[in-house]
């Protein structure tokens, strides 16, 4: 039986790898989900039927406390199903943060339980397992509170602005050093169990302190980093339990989080250290006092006329679009223009939305075909040939200052070259600067028309003008 379990684990690990491989394109992605789910079921069944006995041997007969296990599974399942089906797509980042928190908590609790168990039974763990165990616990608890903080910021129950105080990084560093010192002590002298709760408390506190100085705009990166930590804590659990399947699955999750956070950092021209310790959004509060420059604005009728006369349109959506719940109206506009033979594409900046790839999901939900969604690098060369660039709810990612103004806080950030289109139209509520508080010079260009209003209402107005013209 012990042998069989290992074979089941091998199949399960292979399924996890295939599952991620099949996520490479939409056509095979559903297969990927099923492969992953099958791998998970196999892992659970395998663990139960090959449960290790105390005196060697393995079998389902060794499983005790069935009631505890079964009830926990039933509660987990009963909570999970409604979360999966009720959660609106705009709230997916919060759900992801919450599930990072749950996963990390589980790893941390298993580590804690193992630590006390081995002490209570006077069965000391070998050194490297203890090291793995404290890493698992440290990462688990700090990811738990860190993810809860991230969720609070995304859900806007916590302030989006970075919370900073003097010597913040020093305080954090000292706390982390104390936690590490305790960890070393626990590895060397595991019988000092009274230190363990202090270690846990510091890990929890450190998670909170790590996230509060990070602003709302950096949440896509933070979620990806927390994803990586959650994976690594599962991985450490694999080392502590001597289980290769956990090591593989944890490493896959860890590397995925790492790649996504690198992509996010690159998309904002920031480094890891800068995201984690830089308190972005704090520096540029002084740019507000600028002289009023003239802008050109247009009515829905004029906007409709320009769109109608164009032959190619690139729509640049930002999170503001989702806030205004305008996705479905945009789809109507897309359908309408496409029926007139106008080429409509969507330009998606990597940090559009609240987590990596979020905007794609929001547009896919509104039934916009995914072959119309273009990544920044693929579409930037097309702006110079494009008649109209329609910016909806996006701001900093269209600011040409990022290319040439060395004094701008976003200088060097890769942007969508919206300003190169023949005509630019920007739907915006008012001239208030966006999240980062930076004035966007795109709005003052001669070819730019500002369409002032709520995204959803304005697109609805444009749509009202469009069919009328067909009839005439």
């Amino acid at each position, binding site marked *: 039986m012990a042998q069989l379990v290992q074979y089941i684990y091998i199949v399960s690990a292979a399924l996890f790898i295939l599952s991620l491989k099949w996520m*490479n394109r*939409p056509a095979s992605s559903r297969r990927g989900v099923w492969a992953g789910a099958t791998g998970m079921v196999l892992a659970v069944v395998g*663990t139960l039927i090959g449960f290790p006995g105390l005196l060697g041997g393995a079998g389902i007969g060794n499983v005790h406390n069935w009631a505890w296990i079964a009830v926990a599974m039933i*509660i987990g399942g009963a909570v999970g199903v409604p979360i999966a089906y009720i959660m609106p797509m705009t709230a997916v980042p919060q*759900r992801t943060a919450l599930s990072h928190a749950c996963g990390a908590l*589980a790893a941390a609790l298993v580590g804690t339980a193992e630590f006390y168990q081995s002490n209570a039974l006077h069965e000391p763990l070998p050194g490297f397992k203890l090291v793995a165990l404290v890493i698992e616990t440290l990462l688990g608890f700090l990811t738990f509170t860190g993810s809860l903080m991230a969720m609070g910021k995304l859900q806007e129950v916590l302030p989006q602005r970075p919370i900073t105080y003097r010597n913040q990084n020093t305080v954090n560093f000292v706390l982390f050093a104390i936690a590490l010192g305790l960890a070393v002590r626990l590895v060397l002298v595991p019988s000092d169990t009274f230190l363990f709760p202090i270690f846990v408390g510091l890990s929890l506190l450190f998670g909170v302190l790590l996230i509060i100085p990070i602003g709302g705009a950096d949440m896509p990166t933070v979620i990806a980093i927390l994803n990586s930590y959650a994976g690594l804590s599962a991985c450490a659990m694999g080392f502590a339990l001597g289980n290769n399947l956990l090591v593989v*699955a944890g490493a896959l999750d860890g590397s995925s989080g790492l790649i996504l956070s690198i992509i996010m950092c690159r998309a904002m021209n920031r480094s890891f250290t800068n995201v984690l310790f830089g308190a972005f959004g704090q520096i540029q509060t002084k740019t507000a006092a600028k002289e009023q420059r003239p802008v050109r604005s247009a009515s829905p009728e004029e906007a409709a006329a320009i769109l109608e006369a164009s032959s190619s349109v690139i729509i640049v959506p930002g999170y503001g679009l989702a806030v205004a719940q305008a996705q479905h109206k945009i789809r109507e506009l897309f359908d309408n223009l496409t029926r007139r033979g106008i080429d409509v594409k969507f330009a998606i900046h990597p940090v559009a939305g609240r987590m990596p790839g979020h905007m794609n999901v929001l547009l896919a939900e509104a039934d916009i075909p995914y072959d119309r969604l273009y990544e920044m690098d693929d579409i930037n060369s097309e702006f110079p040939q494009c008649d109209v660039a329609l910016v909806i709810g996006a701001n900093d990612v269209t600011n040409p200052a990022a290319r040439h103004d060395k004094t701008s806080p976003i200088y060097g950030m890769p942007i969508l070259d919206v300003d190169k289109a023949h005509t630019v139209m920007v739907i915006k509520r008012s001239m208030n600067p966006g999240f980062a508080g930076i004035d966007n010079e795109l709005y003052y260009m001669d070819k730019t028309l500002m369409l002032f209003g709520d995204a959803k209402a304005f697109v609805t107005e444009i749509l009202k003008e469009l069919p009328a013209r067909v009839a005439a």
Partner: protein
Amino acid sequence: MNLEMGLFVFMLATFVGLEIIRKVSPLLHTPLMSLTNAISAISVVGAILITGASNATMLSKVLGFVAITSVFTNIVSGFLITDRMVKMFKRPGEKK
């Protein structure tokens, strides 16, 4: 399992992960993250081992119970919501 074997597996899995994830379309980064999240709920194995052991202390049972509950929430909601998301990605003309 000894340490070297574990590190060996870890090294290989990390490289496989990096190569595979690099190829994932940016279109699918959000579903990818919820999928890897569901997969990292593999810590359910550890939670079951802790809870089901015949010599489990009360503390182990309680912590294991909470761990299984939270990780099972992730498994169920993670795979289901990923499926819900990837179903939304439609090719042109493939309307519901």
